[in-house]
C-alpha cells in the first residue's frame, strides 16, 4: 500500500509521551521481576525518553540510533540475565529504537487518510493495541503450558536451567511417560473409542432432528427444539447427577436381563451419555446450514422420480455436509473434553483422558498433564483447521449454486 498522507516531523513532546509510555510498560515487568514495579517503570520511561532526546537533538542519524539501541539494550540484558535477557533486551531495543523514529518522522500517519483528526489517529492505534491485548489475554494461558511440558523436573515450574535455555533443563520425559504409562495409554484409548462412536450417534440423531424440525408442518417446533438443546443449557453437574441414576438402573437392566458384559455396558453408558451432550451442537449447526438450503431442489428431485431417501442422500446431504461435519467436530470435542459426566456415569474401566488429567492434577501435579495438554492443543488445531477449510469449501459451493 502506498503512502496516503505526506508526512512531517513531529514535536518532541509527542515522541517523549509515546516512547515514555512504552518504556514504562516494559519497565514495569522488568521492575516487578527484580523487586519493584514502579521503579522499573520510571527507569524504563526515563531511558527511552533520554535516548529519544539524544537521537533527535544530538545524533541525527537514524540508522546509528536504532543500531545503538538494539545492541546496547541487548548487551545490557545479557549482563543482567544471560541469554534470555539478551534476547528480550534486544527485542525491546529494536522496538524502542524503531518507535522513536516512527513517531518523530511522523510515519505513523503515512498509511492513514489525510483528513483524520489527531483523535481519530489515536483511536486507530488504540484499537489495535486493545485487540492485541485481548489476543494475548486469550492465548497466553495456553502457550505458557507448552514450554513447561518440556521441563526436566517433575514440577510446574520454570527452573533456572530452563530460563537460561540450558538443554539440561529440558527433556521429553513427560512425553515418554505419556506414551509408555499404562494408565495414560488406557485412558487415551478409551477416549478414542468413546468419542468417535458418541460422535456418530450424535451426528445421525442430530441431523435427523434438525431436518425434521426444519419442516414447516411439524407442530410445536420451538418447544421440541428447546428440549433437544437443553443438555447444552442445563448445568453439566445436574445432567450428570441425573444420568448417574438413570444409567445405573439402565446398566443393571442390561447386565441382568440382556446378560451383557460389565465392561461393554460401561462403554455403552458413557457413549450414550456423551451422545446426548453432543446432539445439541449438531442440531444447531445443521439447522443453521439448512437455512441456506433451497427447498425447490427437493421438489425438483421428487419431480424427477427420486424417493425421499434418495433425495436426502444425493441432493440434501451433500449440500448440508459442511454443517453436519462441523457439528460432528463439536460433538467430538465435547466428548473428548468431557470430565464431569464420565466421572459420574463411567467406572474406572472407562476412564477417559480428561478424567485421568483431572485425577492427575489433584493427586500428583505432574507435567505429563502438560505434555498431554500440548498434544491435545495440536489435535484441536488440526480439527479447527479442518473446520475452517470446510467452511471455505461450503462458501465456494454456495457461490457457484444458482440462487
Amino acid at each position, binding site marked *: 500500500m502506498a503512502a496516503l498522507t505526506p508526512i512531517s516531523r513531529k514535536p518532541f513532546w509527542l515522541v517523549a509521551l509515546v516512547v515514555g509510555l512504552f518504556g514504562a510498560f516494559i519497565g514495569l515487568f522488568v521492575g516487578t521481576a527484580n523487586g519493584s514495579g514502579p521503579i522499573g517503570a520510571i527507569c524504563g520511561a526515563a531511558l527511552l525518553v533520554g535516548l529519544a532526546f539524544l537521537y533527535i537533538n544530538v545524533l541525527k542519524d537514524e540508522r546509528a540510533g536504532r543500531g545503538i539501541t538494539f545492541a546496547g539494550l541487548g548487551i545490557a540484558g545479557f549482563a543482567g540475565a544471560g541469554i534470555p535477557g539478551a534476547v528480550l533486551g534486544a527485542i525491546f531495543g529494536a522496538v524502542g529504537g524503531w518507535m522513536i523514529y516512527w513517531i518523530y518522522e511522523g510515519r505513523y500517519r503515512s498509511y492513514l487518510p489525510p483528513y483524520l483528526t489527531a483523535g481519530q489517529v489515536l483511536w486507530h492505534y488504540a484499537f489495535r493495541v486493545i485487540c492485541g491485548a485481548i489476543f494475548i489475554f486469550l492465548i497466553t494461558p495456553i502457550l505458557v503450558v507448552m514450554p513447561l511440558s518440556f521441563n526436566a*523436573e*517433575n*514440577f*510446574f*515450574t520454570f527452573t533456572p536451567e530452563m530460563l537460561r535455555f540450558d538443554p539440561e533443563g529440558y527433556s521429553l520425559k513427560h512425553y515418554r511417560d505419556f506414551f509408555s504409562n499404562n*494408565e495414560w495409554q488406557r485412558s487415551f484409548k478409551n477416549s478414542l473409542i468413546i468419542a468417535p462412536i458418541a460422535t456418530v450417534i450424535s451426528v445421525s440423531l442430530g441431523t435427523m432432528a434438525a431436518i425434521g424440525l426444519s419442516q414447516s408442518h411439524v407442530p410445536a417446533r420451538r418447544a421440541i427444539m428447546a428440549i433437544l438443546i437443553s443438555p447444552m443449557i442445563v448445568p453439566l453437574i445436574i445432567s450428570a447427577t441425573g444420568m*448417574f*441414576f438413570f444409567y*445405573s*438402573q439402565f*446398566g*443393571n437392566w442390561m447386565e441382568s436381563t440382556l446378560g451383557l458384559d*460389565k*465392561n461393554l455396558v460401561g462403554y455403552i453408558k458413557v457413549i450414550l451419555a456423551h451422545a446426548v451432550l453432543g446432539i445439541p451442537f449438531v442440531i444447531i449447526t445443521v439447522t443453521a446450514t439448512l437455512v441456506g438450503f433451497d427447498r425447490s431442489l427437493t421438489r425438483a428431485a421428487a419431480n424427477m422420480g427420486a424417493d425421499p431417501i434418495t433425495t436426502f442422500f444425493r441432493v440434501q446431504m451433500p449440500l448440508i455436509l459442511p454443517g453436519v461435519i462441523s457439528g460432528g467436530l463439536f460433538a467430538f470435542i465435547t466428548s473428548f473434553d468431557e470430565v464431569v459426566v464420565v466421572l459420574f456415569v463411567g*467406572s*474406572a*474401566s472407562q*476412564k477417559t483422558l480428561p478424567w485421568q488429567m483431572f*485425577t*492427575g492434577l*489433584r*493427586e*500428583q*501435579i*505432574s507435567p505429563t498433564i502438560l505434555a498431554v495438554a500440548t498434544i491435545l492443543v495440536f489435535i484441536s488445531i488440526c480439527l479447527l483447521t479442518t473446520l475452517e477449510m470446510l467452511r471455505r469449501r461450503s462458501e465456494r459451493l454456495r457461490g457457484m449454486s444458482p440462487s
Partner: protein
Amino acid sequence: MKFTKTLMATTALTMVAGVSGAADMADEMTIVSWGGAYSKSQLKAYHEPYAEKSGVNIINDDSSAEAVAKLRAMNEAGNVTWDVVDVVAADAMRLCDEGLAMEIDADTQLADGDNGMKASEDFGELLVSDCFIPQIVYSTTFGYRTDLVGDTPPSKICDVFDLEAYPGKRSLEKRPINNMEWALLCDGVAKEDVYEVLATPEGQDKALAKLDTIKDSVVWWSAGADTPQLLADGEVIMGSTYNGRLFSVIEEQKQPVAMLWDAQVFDLDGWIIPAGLSDERKARALDYIMFATDTQRLADQAKYIAYGPARKSSAPLVSKHADLGIDMAPHMPTDPDNAKNTFLYNYEFWADYRDDIDAKFQAWLAK
C-alpha cells in the same frame, strides 16, 4: 439302579460345584486408591504380584478423595462398581457406621504374621474399626525450603507460627484437623490437654486466634500434591503435607527441602471392602486383601514410598528404596529419631466435633 444314578448324578454335581466353587471368583476387580506415587507403590508391591499369582485383571480408580460420597451414591443406585477401596481411618469409620463397608474378622480373614502372630495382635490397636484393614501409618508434617529459611532452620512446630524468625508464606491444609491442634500446642496448651481444650468453644476460639496471627501468610492447600509444588516453586518457605510426599520431593526430585518432624500427626490408611458385593466379587476382594496385607507385602510397599507398614511384623523387613537404593527406615514416620515428639490424632474427638469445628473454621477462613 435309579438310586445309584441319582447318587452318581448328585456326586458329579457336588464335584462340579466344588471345583467351580474354588475358582468362583471374579476375574476382574476395581481397586480404588489415591493416585500418584502412592498408587504406584501399591501397584508395585501388591497389584503386580497378585495379578501374576491369580491372573486377575486389576483396574485402578484414583477416586479415594471422594470415596465416601461416591459409595453412598453407588449404594443408592444399587450399582457398586468398586471391589476394594483405600481410605483413611476416619472415612472407614464413617462408612462402617453407615453400613457401606463390610465387617472383617481379622483373625480368620487376614493372614497371620510371618512370625505366627495372629492378625489381630499383629495389627494391634491400629484396627480402629471393624471394617478397616490397616495398611500404612503416615504422618502429616512440615517441610521447609532449606535455602529460604536463613541460617537456623526451623526445628520446632511453633516456628511455623513465628513470622519474625521465619518471614514468608507457609501452606496449611484447608481444614481444621491438625491445624487446630498445632495452634493450641503453640499457644501453650500441654499436649495431653489439647483435645480437652479443643472441645470447648473458648478453646476453639483460642486456636483460631493463634491461627489468626499467621493467616495473612498462609496459602491453603487441599490436595496432597499442592505443598510439594509450592515448595518446589519457592512460593512458600514451609508447608504441611503427608510425609511420603515430602520424601519424594527431597529424595526423588532432589529439591532443596528438609523435614520438620516435630509434632507430626500420625494417621492410618487402609482398605475397606464395600458392602453388598456379589459372592464372587466378595471372594475375590477377600482373597486380594489376604494377600496384600500379609507381612511381606506391607514391608514391600515401603520400598516405594516412605510410609510405615501397619503390621508390627513388617517393620524388621523394611529395606532399601527400590530405585534409589537408600535405606528407608530413617525416612519412616515411625523411626525413633523422627518420632521423638509426635502427636496422636484423636479419632473419637474428630468424629464427634468435626461438623461443628469445620463450620467454625470455614467461617473464620471467609472472614
